[in-house]
């Protein structure tokens, strides 16, 4: 039987018996086994059912990462209700917009987290969210069970076709979209990436991403359940604390943030720690030098909220064939990729265009939007990403469609300019975008140099690496990556970056 048939509730039941004693989730010093997860979510689902949740409810979860987050989310899914993960970073107007878009009926919220009084903020927006009937605080959830047999009967009704979650995503400057995933496409998407991501049963994977975003929810929480793996997460921690956590928990796979891996490798505690449990699919910086892959030889696993995480990749412990270096690997089972031109026609191998995806792992839809507004007639979703497929079916990413711009009639892809700058020994990190200069677009770059390169040094170097029209004419030298303007989601704030670069100097000799 396909794993998605009984939905998430079916998987929870299977793990509670088949992997009963294995830890499902470890959070700092706390942990919960699959048997305990099964029992706690069953009991809470019974109480949720008694409090009125059914398949037509949509339940917001506004909590920080932790075991309680997972228990609440999985209990919601056992009633058949749809889960709406909400970021604890949302400001009240953003929270109101997402509650309304998803028509949230019930909300589970942490009263206070990191100096934010979430209950007060919810009270502020509640009059403008007519769908919202009930707000529970995370430490005072319903406890009276529904009458005998009701919760089980509701759970039995959950199928792969039912909605599992509405996940909010934003582009670099877009309005948030509520992406709807069914139990079926979520489970299939998570399962399709396990091999490339080197995640097998019993694996102990460190993925510190927040559960309220796709990285933590799809690629972390749901992936671990589908794989029968143990998910390791931490609260905010220092590199030394993370090293101790990885050592103690015998982590087999480290898939944290790249910047975080670099900081850990640079920490004095790193050299004396026993991290021999870590497998070769871990981020390179944290691996022993002799096991570290040559830069550029592994695939950049690639995905998006609309595909419930990665839809493209190649085994992270194996080098790509030379011709495929720089690619994102190949599309996983359950996703078809097609490259489209501006008129929606398919482009051939090697030809660049917009990446479009379809298939059983792709989202069901977006809240408030008609299917015909989201998908082409033959079922493709235009991702807004640029790229090409090579003759062997490897996908190469070339940036966002709405990031590309024209300079003197020629197309510039910021990702291409960034890649050229990253190849320079003078550059540690580069962020490229278009900047308006006397009414016309020009290329701007914010750079964290490796050493003490000046704007003129960087400019001269870039002229050796790029066609004249692609060479940045506006430069900002940053002391640290932390100086790059970012959105609450952690993505680069393109508008902020443009503002930074508009006032940045021109190198000597550069003309607009």
């Amino acid at each position, binding site marked *: 039987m396909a794993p998605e048939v009984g939905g998430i509730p079916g998987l929870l039941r299977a793990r509670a018996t088949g992997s009963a004693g294995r830890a499902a989730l470890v959070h700092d010093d706390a942990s919960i086994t699959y048997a305990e997860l099964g029992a706690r979510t069953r009991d809470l689902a019974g109480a949720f059912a008694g409090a009125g949740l059914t398949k037509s409810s949509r339940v917001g979860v506004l909590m920080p990462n932790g075991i309680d987050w997972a228990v609440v989310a999985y209990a919601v899914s056992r009633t058949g209700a749809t889960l709406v993960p909400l970021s604890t970073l949302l400001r009240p107007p953003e929270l109101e917009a997402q509650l309304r878009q998803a028509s949230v009926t019930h909300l589970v919220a942490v009263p206070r987290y990191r100096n934010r009084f979430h209950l007060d903020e919810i009270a502020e927006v509640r009059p403008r969210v*007519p769908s919202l009937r009930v707000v529970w605080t995370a430490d005072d959830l319903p406890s009276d069970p529904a009458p005998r047999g009701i919760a089980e009967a509701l759970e039995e009704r959950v199928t792969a076709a039912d909605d599992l979650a509405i996940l909010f995503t934003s582009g670099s400057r877009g309005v948030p979209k509520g992406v709807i995933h069914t139990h079926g496409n979520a489970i299939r998407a998570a399962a399709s990436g396990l091999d490339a991501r080197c995640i097998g049963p019993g694996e102990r994977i460190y993925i510190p991403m927040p559960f309220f975003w796709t990285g933590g929810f799809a690629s972390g929480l749901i992936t671990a359940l589908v794989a029968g793996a143990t998910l390791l997460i931490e609260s905010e921690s220092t590199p030394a604390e993370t090293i101790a956590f990885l050592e103690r928990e015998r982590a087999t796979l480290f898939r944290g943030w790249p910047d975080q891996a670099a900081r850990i490798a640079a920490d004095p505690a790193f050299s004396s720690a026993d991290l021999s449990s870590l497998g070769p699919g871990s981020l390179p910086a944290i691996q022993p030098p002799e096991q570290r892959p040559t830069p550029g030889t592994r695939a950049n696993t690639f995905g998006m909220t609309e595909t419930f995480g990665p839809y493209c990749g190649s085994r992270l412990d194996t080098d790509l064939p030379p011709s495929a270096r720089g690619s994102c690997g190949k599309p996983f089972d359950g996703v078809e990729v097609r490259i489209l031109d501006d008129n929606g026609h398919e482009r051939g191998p090697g030809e660049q265009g917009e990446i479009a995806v379809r298939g059983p792992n792709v989202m069901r839809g977006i809240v408030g939007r008609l299917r015909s507004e989201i998908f082409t007639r033959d079922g493709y979703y235009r991702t807004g990403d640029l790229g090409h497929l090579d003759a062997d079916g490897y996908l190469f990413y070339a940036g966002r469609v709405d990031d590309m711009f024209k300079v003197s009639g020629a197309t510039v892809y910021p990702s291409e300019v960034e890649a050229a700058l990253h190849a320079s020994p003078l550059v540690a990190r580069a962020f490229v975008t278009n900047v308006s200069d006397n009414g016309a677009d020009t290329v701007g770059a914010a750079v964290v140099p490796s050493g003490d390169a000046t704007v003129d040094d960087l400019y001269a170097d870039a002229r050796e690496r790029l066609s004249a029209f692609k060479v940045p004419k506006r430069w900002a030298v940053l002391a640290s990556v932390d100086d790059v303007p970012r959105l609450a989601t952690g993505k680069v704030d393109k508008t902020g970056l443009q503002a930074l670069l508009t006032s940045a100097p021109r190198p000597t000799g550069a003309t607009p």
Partner: protein
Amino acid sequence: MFPTEEAAPPMTSETVRCEDDLPLTVTALVHRRAEQYGTKRLVVCDDESLTYVEAERDSAELARGLLAVGAGKGTRVGLLFPNTPAFVVSWLAATRIGAVAVPLSTFSTAVELADLLRRADVDMLLSARSFRSHDYVETLGRAIPELDLGAPAPLWSTTVPSLRRVFVSDIHGDDAVVDDWQLDELRRRAGEVDDDVLAAVEAEVSPADPMVVVHTSGSTSAPKGVVHGQGPLLRHQQNLNERRHFTDDEILFANSPWFWIGGFAYALLGSMVAGGGLVCSNASDAATVLDVLERERPTMTNGFAASVAHIPDDPTFAGRDLSSMRRGNLYPIMPADARPADPGLRYNMLGMTEAGGVCLGTEDETELPEERRGSFGGPVTGLESRIVDPDTGVACAPGEVGVLQLRGPFLMEGYLGRERLEVFDADQWYPTGDLFHVDDAGHHYFHGRAGDMIKTGGANVSPREVEGVIAEHAGLRSHVLGIDDPTKGQVVAAALLSDDDVDLEQLRTMLRDHLSAYKVPRRYLVLADDEVPMMSSGKLDARALKDRFDGA
């Protein structure tokens, strides 16, 4: 208005007024139509009627009551009513706040009703108390053992685990039933929710929200819950109205039940989109139906001709003035000058639940040339069609029989409980299961259900083709089907509808002249009309008919 002397009015683009800014939610539509048409009657059901402004006002009150008991966007609201204003008000109340209406067949037995409520995960049920011989309170009691109308709500039932509330009309003053279970409870509680709250809820309803779950009648399998979205279903009805020239000048007579797609979409929703009127009669005696027709003077007709076939037998029929009905397909009750001389030379229409009503047809109401007899025209606006080989999926050439596939924005969102990939292929085509061939000019001709295609000794036989030959050359109606056979897989069998004996030897000889040998039926049954096994939906019960052959 069209002149009543002419059989078919000239159809030009000027005769149709398209509303470019059609409201794409029920919420917006109910407000717009009430402003536009006020006290004009939206529906007339025998002696009851409902005006546009009443539809808005009464549904607003009921909607406030539904909000008071916890309904909102996505709540599944079951509707168990015959064609009466109460159906309209309940449906509008639910869908104008974004809840999903789930009309339920009033023919349902207790077992079927429990099954529908469970499959559709219905949260609340609004029901008539009774209709004709049906006592729904009694049926519901058998369907849901835990339902106790003498005890307070909510309901907790493992049979229908999401159903919490049931509201039954017309049981006020009944001591045995507490207030919680009365439809009037919703009106009583409407006061808890003020107009601002209703308006705020209505502002959140989107064309992308699901509007209704209509069940297929389940002639060959268990009923499937077909989900249609607000915007697509409304726009589709507008397209179909343009095609059939249904404007706000028209009054439609249609007796199709509103819990199935023909009644719900093509009759009720279509009338509201048009700003027209809808007349129906639940009366079982012909004279009462005729009274309604003479009084209301509908201009158009639609439905199954069988539903009015008994009416011309009424002794008063000849003296009735039915001259108002100029167009449509209920030929038995239409005046002679508005009827086609040969109904077989008019375009047919194909409707299906999954397509939100009609999917094949044409706006041409003239007589067809003989070679186009039986044509269904082509796909209606917004739908694409193609014919493919049922076994290989390869597109058929003109003339070849294959399965009709449809695609487009007005098809259903999907079936409840079924994943999209189980229903649509990768290119988003929906296989209808209906067999058609297309001629060189794009006209579609029906050959029965794909499941009905008889496979005998490696050859495919279209039952429809054999039935056509039997009708044309023997003057007999028949049902042709495949009977399992140990050597040939299936053999062709024919059930002949006749009150008299049939000379089977002569018939067989005649058929051999007109059909390839493998198409000539090997087995025969002669049945009187009333011996044909039928489903409650009025469709042939093919399985029972096969059993008759097996027992013969």
